[in-house]
C-alpha cells in the first residue's frame, strides 16, 4: 500500500510506498529482502525500536521543469517505508543490513540458545 506524506513547513508532498519483501528462515535466523529501487546506502535507514524493525528509504526524483513533460508513467516517484514486528528470539545486537542494486537485505540472527547441560548427581 502507499500513502501521501506532506511536510507542513513546505507544503511538499511525497508518496511513500510499502516495499515488496521476501522473508527467508533458516536455523540461524531470518533474512528480509526488500525492493527499494532508486535508493542507496546513504538514503536508506534501518531502525530497531524495541520490538519493531523500521525500513525507510528515500528516492531522489528529478525536479520537474518547464522543458520536461511526462509522456508515459507506470509509476510515480516516491519513498519507501515498512514496519515489521520482531520476534523475541531475534538477537537485536547482531542485526546487519546491506543494500545493492536497489535491494536491501537485512540479516536477523536468532539468539543462540544455551545447550542443555548435564548436572552430575552426587551421592550423599
Amino acid at each position, binding site marked *: 500500500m502507499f500513502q501521501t506524506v506532506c511536510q507542513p513547513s513546505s507544503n511538499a508532498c511525497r*508518496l511513500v510506498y510499502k516495499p515488496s519483501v521476501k522473508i*527467508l528462515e*533458516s536455523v540461524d535466523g531470518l533474512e528480509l529482502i526488500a525492493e527499494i529501487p*532508486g535508493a542507496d546506502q546513504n538514503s536508506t535507514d534501518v531502525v530497531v525500536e524495541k520490538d519493531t524493525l523500521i525500513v525507510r528509504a528515500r528516492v531522489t526524483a528529478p525536479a520537474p521543469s518547464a522543458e520536461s513533460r*511526462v509522456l508515459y*508513467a507506470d509509476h510515480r516517484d516516491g519513498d519507501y517505508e515498512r514496519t515489521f514486528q520482531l520476534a523475541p528470539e531475534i538477537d537485536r545486537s547482531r542485526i546487519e543490513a546491506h543494500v545493492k*542494486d536497489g535491494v536491501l537485505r537485512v540479516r536477523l540472527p536468532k539468539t543462540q540458545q544455551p545447550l542443555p547441560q548435564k548436572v552430575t548427581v552426587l551421592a550423599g
Partner: protein
Amino acid sequence: MAIFRWGHRWDPLQDLEREVDRLLSSVLSFQGIRFGRQYPPVNVIQLELEYVLTAELPGIRPEDLELTVANGVLTIKGERVGPEGIPDERFRRQERPRGNWRRSISLPDSIEEDKMTAEFVNGVLKVHLPRTPVVRPRQIKVVDGNA
C-alpha cells in the same frame, strides 16, 4: 509483443490498482510475473534534447539485462531469479515475483538510435534517447528572373 503508445498519460488509479494487485498476490501466494500489469514498470519523460526512459529493476545485474533496438522498437528483457539453492518452503513471505520477462516500447520517429545510451544505478535502468534536431523551414527568396 507488448507495446505502449506514446502520449498515454499517467492514470492516477494505477498506483491503487498496483497495490491492490500486490496485496491480492501475497494473499493468494501467487508466484510469477504479475498478471495484467506489465513488468518492469517504466516511465518516459520528454526533455528539451532527449527522451529519458526509466525502468525499475531492483536486484537485476546489469550484465543480465538485454537491450535491443530494431525497427523503431526498444526491447528490454531479462530474468528475475530468487536466491540460489533456497527451497520454496524456507520462504516465510514471498512478494517478489520471479521468472523471465520482456517488454517492448515503440520509439518515436525523432530519435537518433545510434546515439542512445543506457545506465543502471541502484536498480533503476535509465535509457537516454537523443531527439533529432528540429529542421526549421527555410524561406527561399524568389528573385525576378526578368531583371
